[in-house]
């Protein structure tokens, strides 16, 4: 069972659940105010959105929610946690991933398709992915800021760097590789009708776990 955490202001929880189902998995919601993950949780998704309206700093308020304690325990025990966009921001604010997501260089929201390079294929998420992925980004605060020397950068935008991230980072993992955050939205690339199916691999990794 994959737990998709729902905060007030989460937006992409339904899409995340559909993406898990599209690769044959089962998913259910975890509620932000709960103090335990749903029984039988094998992996956790923190979906995109504007939890708490992105007020103060994106992800900051959600990262202090009760549900984050069991998410942290799950991660510490080696369980997989995938944070997408706002979920990535939450993981950074919670200290489960290094760095922080800052306002885009353009200072505006950017919604468009991007090409990603898989630069670290040794995480449970990326082992079976192709070398490059076409997945959309859509965010206002998606420029990763941190220390590239000490961070596992897993996905990069290549040379283009549309948001102004340090080291062109699009997705980073913790040292163990079981917690991954990325700004692009794999749940928006899960069907040929949507223009790409390159997002399915990340959900398949969760289901395999």
């Amino acid at each position, binding site marked *: 069972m994959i737990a998709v955490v729902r905060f007030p202001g989460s937006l992409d929880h339904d899409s995340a659940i559909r993406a898990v189902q599209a690769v044959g998995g089962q998913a259910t919601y975890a509620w932000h105010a709960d103090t335990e993950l749903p029984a039988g949780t094998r992996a956790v998704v923190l979906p995109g959105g504007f939890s*708490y*309206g992105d*007020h*103060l700093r994106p992800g*900051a*308020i959600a990262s*202090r*929610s009760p549900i984050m304690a069991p998410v942290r325990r799950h991660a510490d025990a080696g369980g997989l946690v995938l944070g997408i966009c706002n979920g990535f921001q939450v993981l950074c604010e919670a200290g489960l991933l290094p760095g922080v997501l800052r306002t885009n260089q353009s200072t505006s929201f950017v919604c468009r398709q991007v090409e990603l390079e898989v630069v670290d294929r040794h995480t449970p998420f990326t082992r079976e992915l192709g070398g490059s992925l076409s997945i959309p980004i859509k965010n206002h605060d998606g420029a990763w800021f941190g220390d590239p020397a000490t961070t596992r950068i897993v996905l990069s935008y290549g040379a283009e760097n549309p948001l102004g991230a340090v080291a062109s980072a699009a997705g980073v993992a913790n040292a163990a590789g079981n917690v991954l955050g990325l700004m692009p939205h794999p749940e928006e690339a899960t069907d040929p009708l949507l223009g790409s199916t390159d997002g399915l691999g990340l959900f398949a990794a969760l289901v395999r776990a």
Partner: protein
Amino acid sequence: MTRVVVTVMPRDGVLDPQGQAVQGALGRLGFAGIHDVRLGRRIELELEGPDPLGDARRMCEQLLANPLIEDFTVALEG
């Protein structure tokens, strides 16, 4: 060169959704006795010229603050 500090705060009576969200979050973190939280901006300007405060005030009127919903103050840092 002069450093001018501009503060821009939501006007009294104007909805402050950010402040509300932060107040709620602080309460959930266990802080008690919070009666109000208001969120605004602080802008630090390094200016050159004879009238830095006047310049800052004009910048507020033209760009830095939205007079419909925000009040601003300018001050020399010190």
